[in-house]
């Protein structure tokens, strides 16, 4: 009892200084301001649209956040996602059953993650460079399978969009929210999760504490791969078609979202909720700029400015400390 109180008091204190609160406030402020300018923005249909738009990025951000917190990074997730999607599409167009296609899609990205993990854990090379390389490999394989053309999913994946909870939450959004929840529980509440946070915070110490660091890294990259496979399905469902080069850039968007959310390159630091809010913020900004009728080119400039501002702001305390 006494302990629970202490823990909760401590958590309250920590929360007040938390980046998540800041991000939450920014998001609320943004919704209020844009909502006042154009009421379309706060309609339920638009809110659903925003969540639908970020469902792919949200899942990728979770994968990226987990890897960053564990001290790694994976820049191949964009092309990994597309490889998974391309495989699903090819199986469907060749008359394969949907369930086989889905299982194959998730399996291939899990294997991609596994391969990344094994190379990184065993070779001790920089994950940044390794995954830049494997990214090219995955892209190449996608091209080999798909050629340069579109693969059509024949609306087989439409259930992701059409099945809706309470008539406003599409399945793809539910999947994303479930992944966020699972990731939160995984990183905060489970032994596995706390160990990968420990590895990210101080790898040497984790090793000396008897943790099988290599194994944990491999598992982390594999989990990331599996999640990316799910993102691939949603990606395919949203567009009903895919090309081999459709996924490039997604890994960087996920990276940016996670960093806006307070996850750092150093590892061991950052939260799942923060990363998700980071992703939500980018989604809301993008949607708001559309609704306000901002020109597409200007939109890109503004998005860039917001990213830089957010990261600088979130790092101000750090910069002060280092002085």
């Amino acid at each position, binding site marked *: 009892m006494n*302990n*629970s109180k*202490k*823990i909760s008091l*401590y958590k309250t204190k920590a929360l007040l200084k938390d980046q998540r609160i800041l991000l939450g406030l920014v998001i609320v402020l943004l919704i209020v301001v844009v909502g006042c300018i154009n009421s379309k923005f706060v309609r339920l249909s638009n809110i659903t649209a925003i969540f639908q738009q970020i469902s792919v990025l949200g899942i990728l951000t979770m994968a990226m956040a987990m890897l960053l917190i564990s001290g790694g990074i994976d820049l191949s997730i964009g092309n990994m996602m597309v490889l998974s999607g391309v495989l699903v599409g090819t199986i469907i167009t060749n008359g394969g059953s949907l369930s086989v296609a889905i299982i194959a899609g998730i399996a291939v990205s899990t294997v991609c993650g596994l391969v990344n993990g094994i190379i990184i854990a065993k070779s001790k090379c920089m994950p940044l460079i390794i995954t830049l390389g494997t990214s090219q490999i995955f892209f190449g394989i996608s091209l080999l399978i798909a050629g340069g053309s579109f693969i059509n999913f024949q609306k087989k994946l439409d259930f992701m969009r059409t099945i809706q909870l309470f008539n406003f939450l599409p399945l793809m959004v539910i999947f994303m929210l479930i992944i966020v929840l699972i990731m939160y*529980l995984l990183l905060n*509440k*489970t*032994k*596995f*999760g*706390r*160990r990968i*946070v*420990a590895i990210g*915070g*101080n790898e*040497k*110490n*984790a*090793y*000396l*504490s*008897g*943790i*099988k660091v290599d194994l944990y890294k491999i598992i982390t990259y594999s989990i990331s791969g599996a999640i990316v496979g799910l993102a691939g399905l949603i990606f395919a469902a949203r567009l009903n078609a895919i090309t081999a080069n459709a996924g490039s850039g997604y890994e960087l968007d996920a990276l940016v979202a996670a960093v806006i959310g307070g996850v750092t390159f150093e590892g*061991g*630091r950052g939260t799942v909720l923060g990363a998700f809010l980071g992703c939500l913020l980018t989604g809301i900004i993008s949607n708001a700029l559309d609704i306000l009728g901002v020109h597409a080119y200007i939109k890109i400039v503004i998005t860039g400015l917001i990213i830089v501002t957010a990261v600088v702001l979130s790092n101000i305390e750090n910069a002060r400390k280092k*002085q």
Partner: protein
Amino acid sequence: MSVDTTNTVPLIKMQGIIKEFPGVRALSNITFDVKKGEVHCLVGENGAGKSTLMKILSGAYTPTAGSIFINGKEYSALTPALSQELGIDIVYQENDLVPTMNAVENIFVGKEITKPGGFVDFKAMLTKVENLMEQYRIHIDPLQTIEKMSVADQQFVKILKALMKESKLLIMDEPTSMFNVEDAEKVLSLVRNISEKGISIIYISHFLKEVVQIADRITVIRDGSVIRTYDNSSKNVSINDITNDMVGRPVDMFYQKEPCNIGDIMFEVKDLKLTKESPSVSFSVRKGEILGVFGMVGSGRTEIMRAISGADRRYSGDFYLNGQKLNIKNPRDSIKAGIAHITEDRQRLGLTLNLSVLENILMVGLQNMKRSLFYDYKRMGADVEPIVKKLRIKTPSVMQQVLYLSGGNQQKVVLGKWLYANQSVYIFDEPTRGIDVGAKAEFYKQITELAHAGNCIIMVSSDMPELISMSDRVLVVRDGAIKCELTKEEINEQTIIKEALGVKEHE
């Protein structure tokens, strides 16, 4: 429980251990054992091989040859996992905690208590930690993240972590070197408590007084070999004998400093305030004078020095050199003004470990010289060579990476850097922390020479013999303020420690 150290079977016996690194033989034929419930102290100069030997026990290193017997079973090498399984735990000198996690989580890293489904049971872990803290009378905030803790508290977390695992053997590597007197005493009584519970302890320390106070046996290691093992069951082994074994020559505890001619006031600090609320600090140093500064950990002595050298911002205050006001906003300004700051943390703040001795020594001085586009290594090597010779830096060549030098030699490189830059105000913060007796004496000689040459020296030190034998005057800092100033005649251990701890005299 008193332990009969003569008849028990050793818990651990290391036999004929050899460890070679490329080009270096770190350990040659070491034989060493530890009995159950024994406090076995390991002493030796830095670089003697103590840490290497311990890393073999913890499984971090694989020995080149030799065997390890644990409970009579023979192993040719251990891994970290195996070593822990066998109940061996090491409290490292360097930081081995996860900075972003709190104390409880750090204590349980790799050993988490879980509820069904792999979920961590944080409350159970907290309760266990609090019980342990109570049992051993350790006071820390278990929910604080490590990066926000003092160095002393971090050390207690490490010890708690080891105790939680119910180890059979605890290796403590310089556990008190970062502590003030009070905390160090706590660690010593903790060590006694632990050994009374039947847990063996290997205790590595430079503080020989501590060692004699606490050890059942003392083993001296020099240059990778065991020189002698003393039976200290009656706690009366002579410190002089141990130091003789350590260096192979008698060592005077108090360095005999030659007197210098002290001139006019050279460097002055006026009304320095670190923050708006902090007390104002003023003092001055004369030409040729060594000003000692003493204070407990956390007293603010290091912060004052960092403000002077521009490493931290200050709220207000001015500095004067030979009557001229200095405009110091950052380290670059203070270097240009002629201030040298030999920081307390040489590895992190004083050196670039992956660069060579040459480049480290040139780091500051080169900026003041005429610039040319390319490094002329040959000419600069010739420039640096006299400094390496003068300081007797032991290195195969000036191109050797500083990383591979011993602590004492690294510290000499730091000094060499400032000598090359030819500064006039030298601030030493714990100049000889963690370096061996022989290197210390050489360091004192260098500091004295600097004073002789008409520079002024500010020397922050927790090493009482060092402070007393070197200083011409001592300032005692407590709570960020200068509490007293002692002239050469007034300097004595009792006064200094009382002022530093804030103990009032009653009679």
